[in-house]
């Protein structure tokens, strides 16, 4: 079997510019390469409102998975507040198959910190927390090292770079819960409580950490901000996929994006592209395509929480609106590949187990439902399922999705529902009384 010939659009290195540079995590190295010049520019020549305006102009969308316009989110933070305002950088990168933020934190922690400082300046925050996944010890160490260097250099603390802007920054390691990557679960954890997501509204911009206005952005989102401040929002907006004037909901995907591939491919990894390359290009061109003798069966475009696409559907562009239109989602843009050796029933057990185990336990449908799903998949896998189980699964998806405080339950349902829809014959073949694909009826045994 031959790998289909695939284009390799060149990478556009903005966030990953310093990746591979020796000691790129030290201030000495990156400052010579331009680190903190954006901060200096903002503090000396721009008002906070101007920084926010540039981010709005850039049409930067959140890189944590939901793709909410960052500038709009910044605008939600009240200008004046008697309370301390916070910036919380969501570095709890625990989405399965996702490892892009880790590269940023390990290889260019000063870029992340500079982005946080710019955001803090823009919204008037005086404290930054970087909430890092506990299983990322090197990220934690590099960020803490960067903070210490920045503090010593007058880049963090009182009167940063001689300006009137003062801001403290802290690393807060998580303790190993997927749900603490949900922004309000993260805030609870940050406050020392159980990571139970909060009911919104109030949104964190109004009432977040310690009941104070809080801006929460993903690592990659914030890491984009220095470039936007240096080069202008308009320059950023020129990159990537423009908005679709015919569709007001398709606001485009501007800028570059770290994209990754994991699973049984020849060269898994993370690269940076302007939005617009196709999923096929990512997987075949950069990921190297399937292992010798294998074919690709299904791909989750970003993380585990999105519906799967089949090999035939991989020509979709990597963009927020494009993947949504294709019935999936960009998610974290770190694709998980499943090849022809992947047993879809076992894959569902794996997915269901993950969400069942990571459910915080708060809402009834998620706490009880995700485990129930897992048990049903296990029953099918053991050859004890019936046709009614497939209907039961479909019915439970509806009883779980959209019925809970946070989106974890939705994230559990989306991949599972799409797998059952697209690979139903695999499930039918495993039932206690298998269904023939032709007749669509149970074979009497």
């Amino acid at each position, binding site marked *: 079997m031959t790998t289909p010939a695939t284009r390799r659009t060149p990478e556009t290195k903005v966030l990953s510019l310093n990746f591979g540079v020796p000691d790129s995590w030290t201030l000495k190295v990156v400052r010579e390469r331009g680190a903190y010049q954006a901060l200096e520019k903002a503090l000396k020549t721009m008002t906070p409102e101007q920084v926010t305006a540039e981010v709005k102009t850039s049409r930067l969308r959140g890189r944590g998975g939901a793709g909410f316009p960052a500038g709009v989110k910044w605008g939600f933070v009240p200008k004046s507040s008697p309370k301390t305002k916070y910036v919380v950088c969501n570095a709890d990168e625990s989405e399965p198959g996702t490892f892009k933020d880790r590269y940023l934190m390990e290889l260019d922690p000063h870029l992340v910190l500079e982005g946080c400082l710019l955001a803090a300046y823009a919204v008037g925050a005086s404290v930054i927390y970087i909430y890092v996944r506990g299983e990322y010890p090197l990220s934690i160490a590099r960020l803490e090292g960067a903070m210490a260097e920045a503090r010593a250099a007058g880049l963090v603390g009182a009167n940063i770079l001689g300006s009137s802007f003062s801001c403290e920054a802290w690393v807060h390691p998580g303790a190993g819960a997927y749900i603490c990557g949900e922004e309000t679960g993260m805030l609870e954890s940050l406050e020392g409580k159980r990571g139970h997501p909060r009911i919104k509204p109030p949104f964190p911009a109004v009432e977040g950490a310690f009941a104070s206005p809080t801006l929460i952005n993903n690592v990659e989102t914030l890491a984009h901000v220095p470039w936007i401040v240096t080069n202008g929002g308009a320059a950023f907006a020129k990159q990537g996929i423009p908005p679709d004037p015919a569709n007001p909901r398709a606001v485009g995907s501007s800028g570059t994006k770290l994209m990754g591939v994991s699973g049984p491919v020849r060269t898994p990894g993370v690269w940076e592209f302007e939005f617009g390359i196709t999923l096929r290009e990512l997987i075949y061109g950069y990921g190297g395509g399937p292992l010798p003798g294998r074919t690709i069966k299904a791909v989750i475009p970003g993380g585990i929480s999105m519906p799967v696409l089949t090999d035939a559907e991989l020509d979709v562009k990597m963009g927020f609106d494009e993947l949504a239109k294709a019935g999936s989602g960009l998610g974290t843009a770190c694709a998980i590949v499943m090849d022809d050796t992947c047993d879809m029933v076992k894959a569902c057990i794996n997915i269901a187990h993950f969400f069942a185990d990571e459910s915080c336990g708060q809402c*009834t449908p998620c706490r009880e439902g995700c485990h129930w799903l897992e048990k049903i998949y296990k029953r099918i896998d053991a050859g004890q399922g019936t046709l009614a189980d497939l209907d039961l699964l479909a019915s439970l998806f509806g009883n779980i999705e959209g019925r809970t405080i946070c989106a974890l339950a939705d994230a559990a349902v989306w991949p599972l529902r799409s797998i059952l829809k697209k690979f139903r014959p695999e499930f039918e073949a495993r039932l206690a009384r298998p269904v023939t694909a032709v007749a669509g009826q149970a074979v009497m045994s």
Partner: protein
Amino acid sequence: MTPPSPSSVPAAPPAAAAVTIDGRAVPFRPGQTVIQAAHAVGIDVPHYCYHPGLSVAGNCRICMVEVEGSSKPQIACKLPCAEGLKIRTQSPLALEARAGVMEMLLVNHPLDCPICDQAGECHLQEYSFAFGQGATRATTEKTHLPKNVPFGAKVVYDAERCIKCTLCVRFVDEIAGTHELAMGGRSDQEIVIMTAKGEFTTPYAMNIIDLCPVGALTSRDFRFKSRLWFMDFTPTLCTGCARGCNVTLGARTGRLMRLEPRFNAEVNRWWMCDPGRLGYGHVNSATRLTAPRVKQPDGSWVEVTVEAALAFAGALLRAARMSGGGMSGGGMSGGGGDVLCDGNLALEELQLAKDLAAALKGQARFAAAVGKDGDSLLIVNEKGANAKGAEALGLARQSAPAPALVLLVEEHDNVGKALRDGSGAKVVFASDATHVPASAEVAFPLPTFAEKDGWLVNVDGHVQALRRSPQTGPQGLTSAVELLDELLTELASPRGGRGLSDVRAELRSLPALAALIWTAVEAPAPAEATT
């Protein structure tokens, strides 16, 4: 509501803000949620984790309703009312969402209703009947979790029955303020854990049993004692202290089985303290006086009829009145005709005791214990459940032993042993034989708080009604009001010959009581309370 004024400018009055629930305009106050507005007008929105006295958790999801314009159902407990909001509680989407939650709640529930104390007052049962499915689709192995976990000495936890609504955790956080409970574990292993070692420090811990909408938290005192449908329930008062918490008394075959708090916005809201809840032992005491008794010359007691006892007591009291202070020298100097009352006696009983004292040319006094456990929530140091009423009627408080001819002693050690023995009383009304002092010549059984109708005045001046529980205590007891009235007749007092309603009418007209708050006894008796 301001009545419309015809003379005002003919501008349309501002319409009260309203949401539409099931096609009906439902008014709301700013800040109210949909569930509050709905409940206020009697529209039932089911709920487990919502409680009007606690913060909103929004985790059980049973209160989901359809909101026009939203494809997803919303939880009514957290949905703020807004003008123009259109809610459907019975639409296919709302009913489907509710049935879905019901099913999820039962997937891992042990379904052990036949041995569960909550059966009969369980919201899981009620909502299963209302919204659940007849046949189960949950045929997978259930999750197993800790059972029979002691939460202190008074509460028992079953994590398998638990629906993780966190009402108990919120209660100890927000009302008790003692934080002994927390959620532990996650996903379907999530359970309630006790963070303190061994015991609650709050005296209000047992409220979590009432709050628990299912059988996860049960009372060590009540569990396995009776099925609810064999009991009858009476809305009455706790007499453990002068707060006068409103309670529902559950009784069966002559025994008081349990007390549970009953909502009263002005007195106890939804709560009561553990000492009050468990302080009913004297009602079920094995040494209750069940019939009048008269002392024989040899010092032994003989049970007699009420009529015989009244005649005996009447003769005794008449003799004492005749001799007046003539009993001096026998340790009875002063107070020869005094009546010492328990501070828990009802206003009606105290009023007649006053009349009796007057007929005996003596004074009526009361005694009540004073504790040191008062707090800012409910418990007060004043233990006389009607001390305020006794004072309003002009009875002096007695705290040191002093002679009295008649003694009425009920419970709770208001009239302690020193005062009882020190009274030298000849005619004694007591609920328990152990409270009858050696000086007594005749003893009448006194109904406890559970066995009588009567008015008590609480610490804040609220007049509230005790109601008789028909199944509780020795059957056929004559009320103290009746006995005291008969004695007045025996003594040929012009005040004799009154019944309960006569005394009540008299009390209502007393200027000394006019300043009290009478709203509670003017309202009709509350319907049988549910948790």
